[in-house]
């Protein structure tokens, strides 16, 4: 396939965004929908072809489009690179994006700003594509901040809503904190590698494994430091513990946005980054340890919060965060390919769950609180089936050697790799991961039961209007559902099986002694079975809690008291950050403004001088007239005096 077609897979969405964004009023709602959906669907079709060429036939393509920044030895081009890692991401991004575009035609059908919405979606897709096709760190950063912008715009899509405004700013700023780390990482990379092109960096990384450099006054191992700085960026974008507070709030955006950006694609960018930089991370074992620990902790913290929330979208959001934790600790134990495998399967089933949840919310006329749902599974059977498929895939249900849902293959591979790790943190991650498997199953079925079963808790008026979504919304879920069922079973061999070294074709690098995916075959049999052994009881517990003994959850919550409140209030991260940063920043700002600028600087500076001159002026005359020409005159006199003085001296 030729270069223009590769470029089309990246730039068609931009074209769609451009046309719908600037000429939306001219071409109308329908025109905007056609242009943007068309752009992304074509890009998706091309992505499949690219996947076949690159991942299955082993071609690697790289195009330099134009120079971007050149300053001294710092050189960066606009370039596209297509290896297997990129090709997988293209399928995920363009595939899910095109389905979300079509779904949005129905879901957002009655909105007053359809062209704007479609344009933002396509713009997001473009930035995401730039991120995954980049051949250097800086263009990746371009896509990285670009998807952050698109996310900001889409969370804020209903801009009359104050909660949406706040959530959008929060998302952008928390991501900026991550990007601050990312940028410092880029600076550091240029210092140690002399380049920010991936090829140059990866080529030099092995020789620099033991290099030390000075960072913030400390002598630190160079590779580990830059890897950790870059990882701060990944933590921000992928909502890992500490920089995660924006993701649940981001659910203020329309549901298709949550599915595309805050579940399937953008939030996985951090995982992609670590996999892309595997040739660096492999030589920074300390960094890998941090990645593993952060991932494992995020998985369990988010999973536990997910157990207690009542907003249907927030439950899925915390689930996403938790699954991202899985992906990170997989990367941390050098099972990058398992991380990307889970990224891919997760994209299918989580987009399915979100869009299914959108369909539920649609049915309930906008209600998102699960306490006000229930009893509708017969009324919207197709959505119900989708949600089952998504939940089964998420919980990773399957039978080894026979068949499993998508998540079964990828999640098991992650846990087995962690168990096979030769490091202590790998084993810790395994055990936390197993507990999370229980939590995942529990909150998934809690969601299913609360939403669809039991007696209806919505008011009669709402219940009358409960209806199945139109086919423009249900149709796009078919490919996602197929993916959620079969993707793991079908792609297992490529991603993490025998064919994987041909498949990845060098786009992921693992040191021989860290090959946890190989070693995973030799872990004890019980360690392989344990995740399933925890997931199934999760389902049973949920059934007991929410169907057989519906008064049990309240009792348990009461019995746990403080612990329950801690989890229910999301470990008080928001309150802590609000106190530490938001209030502190505005307090400092006020102190500097009123006390610093107006008080000290002006008080002793110009105003003080003015007061002083005023006092002197009282005695020696009215020098301080306030007329321009007086000042100008004084200036000229002064210059003249100087010139004269000089004249006589020389």
């Amino acid at each position: 396939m030729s270069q223009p077609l590769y470029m089309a897979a990246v730039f068609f969405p931009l074209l769609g965004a451009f046309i719908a964004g600037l000429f939306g009023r001219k071409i109308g709602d329908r025109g905007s929908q056609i242009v943007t959906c068309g752009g992304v669907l074509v890009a998706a079709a091309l992505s499949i072809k690219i996947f076949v060429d690159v991942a299955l036939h082993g071609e690697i393509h790289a195009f330099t489009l134009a120079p971007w920044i050149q300053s001294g030895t710092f050189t960066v081009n606009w370039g596209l690179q297509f290896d297997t890692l990129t090709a997988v991401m293209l399928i995920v991004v363009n595939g899910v994006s095109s389905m979300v575009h079509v779904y949005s035609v129905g879901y957002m059908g009655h909105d007053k700003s359809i062209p704007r919405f479609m344009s933002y979606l396509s713009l997001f897709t473009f930035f995401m594509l730039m991120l995954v096709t980049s051949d250097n760190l800086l263009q990746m950063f371009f896509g990285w901040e670009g998807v952050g912008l698109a996310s900001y715009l889409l969370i804020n899509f209903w801009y009359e809503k104050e909660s949406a405004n706040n959530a959008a700013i929060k998302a952008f700023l928390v991501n900026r904190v991550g990007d601050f780390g990312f940028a410092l990482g880029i600076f550091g990379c240029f210092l140690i590698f002399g380049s920010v092109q991936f090829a140059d960096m990866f080529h030099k990384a092995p020789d620099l494994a033991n290099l030390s450099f000075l960072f913030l006054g400390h002598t630190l191992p160079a590779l580990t430091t830059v890897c950790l700085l870059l990882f701060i960026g990944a933590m921000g974008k992928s909502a890992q513990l500490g920089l995660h507070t924006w993701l649940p709030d981001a659910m203020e955006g329309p549901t298709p946005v949550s599915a595309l950006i805050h579940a399937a694609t953008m939030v996985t960018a951090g995982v992609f980054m670590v996999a892309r930089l595997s040739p660096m991370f492999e030589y920074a074992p300390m960094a890998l340890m941090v990645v593993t620990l952060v991932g494992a902790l995020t998985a369990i913290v988010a999973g536990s919060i997910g157990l207690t929330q009542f907003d249907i979208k927030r439950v899925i959001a915390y689930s996403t965060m938790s699954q991202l934790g899985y992906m990170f600790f997989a990367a941390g134990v050098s099972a990058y390919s398992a991380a990307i495998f889970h990224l891919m399967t997760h994209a299918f089933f989580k987009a399915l769950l979100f869009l299914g949840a959108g369909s539920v919310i649609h049915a309930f006329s906008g209600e998102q609180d699960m306490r006000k749902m229930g009893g509708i599974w017969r009324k919207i059977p197709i959505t119900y089936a989708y949600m089952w498929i998504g939940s089964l895939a998420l919980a990773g249900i399957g039978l080894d050697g026979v068949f499993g849902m998508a998540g079964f293959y990828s999640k098991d591979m992650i846990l087995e790799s962690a168990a096979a790790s030769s490091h202590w943190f790998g084993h810790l991650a395994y055990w936390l991961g197993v507990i999370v498997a229980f939590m995942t199953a529990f909150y998934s079925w809690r969601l299913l039961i609360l939403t669809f079963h039991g007696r209806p808790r919505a008011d009669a008026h709402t219940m009358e209007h409960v209806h199945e979504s139109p086919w423009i919304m249900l149709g796009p879920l078919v490919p996602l559902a197929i993916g959620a069922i079969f993707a793991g079973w079908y792609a297992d061999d490529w991603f993490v099986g025998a064919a994987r070294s041909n498949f990845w074709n060098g786009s992921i690098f693992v040191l021989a002694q860290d090959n946890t995916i190989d070693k995973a075959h030799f872990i004890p049999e019980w360690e392989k079975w344990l995740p399933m052994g925890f997931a199934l009881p999760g389902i049973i517990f949920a059934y007991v809690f929410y169907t057989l003994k519906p008064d049990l959850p309240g009792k348990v919550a009461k019995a746990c008291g403080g612990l329950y409140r801690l989890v229910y209030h999301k470990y008080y991260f928001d309150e802590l950050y609000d106190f530490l940063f938001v209030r502190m920043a505005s307090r400092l700002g006020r102190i500097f403004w009123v006390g610093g600028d107006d008080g000290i600087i002006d008080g002793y500076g110009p105003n003080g001088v003015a007061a002083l001159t005023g006092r002197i002026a009282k005695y020696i005359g009215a020098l301080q007239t306030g007329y321009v020409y007086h000042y100008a005159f004084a200036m000229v006199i002064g210059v003249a005096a100087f010139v004269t003085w000089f004249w006589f001296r020389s």
Partner: protein
Amino acid sequence: MAPWPVLTTITFLPLIGALLILLFVRGDEQKRSVVLAQQIALWTSLLTFVVSLTILHYFDASQSGFQLTEKHVWIPSFNIAYYKGIDGISIWFVLISTLLTPICVLSAIGGVHKRTKEFMIALLTLETMMIGMFTALDFVLFYLFFEGVLIPMFLIIGVWGGAGRIYAAYKFFLYTFLGSVLMLVAIFAMVYHVGTTDMTAMMGNKFPKDMAIWLWLAFFASFAVKTPMWPFHTWLPYAHVEAPTAGSVILAAVLLKMGGYGLIRISIQMLPTASAYFAPLVFTLSLIAIVYTSLVALVQTDMKKLIAYSSVAHMGFVTLGIFSMNQQGLDGAMLVMISHAFVSGALFLCVGVVYDRLHTREIARYSNMADNMPRYALVFMIFTLASIGLPGTSGFVGEFLSLQGAYLANSWLAFVGGLGVILGAAYMLWLYRRLFYGPDVKDDVRLLPDLNAREYCMFVPLIVLVFWLGVHPATFINVFAPTTDKILADYHQAAGSERTP
């Protein structure tokens, strides 16, 4: 070489326009004379811009020295010459001046309603002074124009400003004048030492270390006020708030750059050893400026004050980059200055758009404007994003390179400076959210009309440049890179230090 004195032409073309207005426009407040004055000013400034584009054609971008030079003996007994020329650095400031003046005229056509004739004269005179300053290669000429800029600007604030204009103009004058006096003394000392007023003769390492240190401080007093650097910045918010829109635009886009330009042209090129000596001081002040003024911007309730404080923070990146003394830092500083000219100029124009309609700069008076002014919202968003340095816009390239340069000098600089990038996003998005989003809709705000054709003409060129510089900065870098490269080579040779990539 140009076959005609192109620099003199573009310097004095605006002044000729000002004279035409003075001579031919009679009667001050009649509609006809107002329109005539506006037309003359607009066409003169446009003509100047078109003529100034020819210097890009005549300029040989592969050379590092001064080009298009014009030298005529002026006062032979003192070795003073009328000496003009540009290099890869000053060429951009000339072009920024000539680009923004017609845009300011357009803005003033909608925003200035009293003494229009005099306003246009002041604006055109100001343009002559700015171009004259950036093209001067003789210290006397340089000083004349450097101070000359003050007078029309002072008048623009003092006559056409808002309610507190007298205090603002006085503060502006006091600060800058104090700096200028010290600079004048330093110029005398340098001229006395070298025996000529030729600025090119003073480059390199011509002054003994002790003397250089005093000279450096004297110049720094002037440039630190102009830039402005913390703690010499408190005149800026007042000047901006009170100035009419066109005045704010010129002030932010061009006048502040006189500080950065002076730091490169005089501090670095003429006093390299002292610059090396004082670099830690500049770093400290820059970092304070970035964090301090960003925090102050966060709590502002006046649009113009907020953008004024953001300017101080952005200039912090400039001084950080310049004194990093490496290619990325200096190139980054240049790009921040060029970008800031477009972006802050445009942001002040944006404020002007609603100020002309509702006559208030109070942020709380506005809300939800995305609804009834979608095009305005888009334009404002583009410049907001450029201001917070989103990759792909002009703000990113400069900020990134200057921080990269700062990192190479010392990682602490990039670390603290990077905090400013986070805070920058905070105060700009918070501003945008209060103006354009939100639940409460005010009746008079809802009735505001969207951008008109005149306003489009102001914004479109700046939008094009913001993306051009963001996506293809080579257009700009390639012109100044040979010069910055030479400046750094000379600097490191003089300071006896080693040059990093």
